[in-house]
């Protein structure tokens, strides 16, 4: 439970032995080691960027870097449609998930009845259950409701899959907002809902942002749910698009990596600018079983 509640900002911490380390001759050795490990770890990421920006074989361009492949995949493939589908599904998922998780998180944070703590425990159990167990019966149910091969159906599942962690993240953030503010408002005659809306919610922006990033990553990166529920190529989200495009153009690495870079760029940009709001437990959950 604690792990999921810990929001860890990737901020630099003060070096524990800074005064000692300054004279440490091993400092540069450690630096070299860290540098080598980082370089090796980034090879798979660098490969995507390099291949996507490298002029295609047989290209007339002599530039070292070119956007030819990127322009090419946008012009000649379904990449724009996949991108639009992914954006629509993720945006819908994030909005609905936050709208549902924020009030539920408030109840979890402020309510102290047995029913509420039971619900909290239930959420923990649910989030550790394999997605595959839920996907099979949902496929049968959604087939009857005409929600298979349907982006709205996909969004509904993403909201459900991310819900338990999202509620926890909201509750954890709201725990940090002192209840005394609401108590003052209640004494002034404000309703419980009013206290939630104009005091707690208004002060929860960082928590909302963390939750939004988490739900965004769940839906943007998901492969398992998408491959089960989406059939038509024009309804593919980017993960399905990247995968199918790769299978069909296995040797055309420039174009394959260009589609891959379209998928990789948004999470990296969000991470670059908002890494303060990345939550350890949240992102861990984002990659679990999807």
């Amino acid at each position, binding site marked *: 439970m*604690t*792990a999921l509640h810990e929001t860890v900002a*990737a901020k*630099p*911490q003060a*070096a*524990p*032995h*800074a005064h000692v380390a300054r004279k440490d001759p091993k400092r540069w050795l*450690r*630096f070299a080691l*860290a540098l080598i*490990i*980082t370089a090796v*770890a*980034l090879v*798979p*990421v660098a*490969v995507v960027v390099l*291949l996507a920006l490298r002029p295609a074989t047989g290209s007339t361009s002599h530039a070292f870097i070119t956007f030819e492949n990127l322009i090419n995949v946008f012009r000649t493939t379904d990449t724009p449609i996949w991108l639009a589908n992914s954006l629509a599904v993720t945006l819908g998922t994030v909005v609905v998930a936050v*709208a549902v*998780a924020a009030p*539920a998180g*408030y109840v979890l944070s402020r*309510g*102290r009845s047995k029913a509420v703590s039971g619900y909290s425990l239930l*959420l923990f159990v649910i989030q*550790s259950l*394999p*997605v*595959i*167990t839920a*996907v*099979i*019966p*949902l496929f049968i149910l959604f*087939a009857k409701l005409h929600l298979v091969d349907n982006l709205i159906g996909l969004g*509904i599942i993403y*909201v*459900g899959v991310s819900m338990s962690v999202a509620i926890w993240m909201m509750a954890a953030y709201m725990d940090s907002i002192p209840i005394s503010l609401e108590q003052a408002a209640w*004494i002034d*005659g404000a*309703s*419980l*809902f009013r206290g939630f809306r104009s005091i707690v919610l208004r002060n929860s922006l960082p928590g909302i942002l963390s939750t939004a990033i988490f739900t965004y990553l769940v839906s943007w*990166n998901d492969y*398992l749910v998408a491959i*089960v529920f989406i059939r038509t190529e024009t309804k593919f989200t980017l*993960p399905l698009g*990247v995968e199918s495009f*790769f299978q069909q153009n296995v040797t055309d690495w420039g174009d*394959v990596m260009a589609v*891959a870079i379209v998928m*990789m760029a948004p*999470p990296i940009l969000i991470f670059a600018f908002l890494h303060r709001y990345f939550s*350890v*437990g949240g992102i*861990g959950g984002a990659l*679990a*079983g999807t």
Partner: protein
Amino acid sequence: MTSAIGTTKQASGVTTPQRPRRAARRLDVNKATMLALIAPSVVLLLLINAYPLVSAANQSLHNGTLISSGSFVGLDNYRSVLTSPQFWQAAEFTLIFTIVGVFGSWAVGLGLALLLQTDIPGRSLLKVLLLLPWVVPIVVSATSINYLVATPSSPVPSLFHALGLGAPLFLANPGWAKVTVCVYKIWVSFPFMMLMASAALSSVPDTVYEAAQMDGAGAVARFRRITLPMIARPTYISWILMTIFCVNDFPTIYLLTGGGPISATTTLVVLAYRTVFQNFLVGPGVAIAFLMTLALVVVSVVLYRQIRKAAFH
């Protein structure tokens, strides 16, 4: 922190001492508000999480397909699953994949966290860069790994060849495919472990180390006697989470090897997926998913007990 409802009772008691009836009504209103706030999430959880679980339990006792519910067969599905060699092969690789994934990523993550805790130039930048394997979508990194290792003329096999280590078939040879999938999982997961370990390490007060240093404890002794015990609790939590992530992991394996070659890298999730959506055997597929869930719950409970023990120390 006191109960919101209880607090409101006091609050309204303060404002309306002469009107208890109104206070009672207000309490009901607050209960109704709480219910209204939590209701949408309950509905969604019932639909997306509870209904499928009940439905799956039912399906595992029937011989249905994706379009018909079939007839009741009792525990036949479980019997056929538990006696099939494919199941045990997948269970064995799931175990290997999970153990290597959890402890491999933990060792790398903790090592890097310790390294980046020391004073080295540009460590906050390095820390951010090292989180990238985790931020990059699996579909993208799996494609990249494919480029790097798939054929004998790919960069990594070529490098092996140039170093005189032969040119292993990283994805086509069953043994090597297992190694590749496990190493890939460690690559994807070590940033998570690094973050968890960094957070844990930063909570250990410096004074503890200074005292130990004065007592003449060496670096190894300080690590074993002080660091490890002091970060035991967050370490166990990270192991539990990573166990869940590894057992439930589908794309890492499916996108890299599809479970092959000759089902060498098939885990239980991949097997359940294939049984249902490629062989159209819903009952046995759900049974596999259920057995896997059961094993996961058992392991989580055992590790959870370790946490509580660690909390007492």
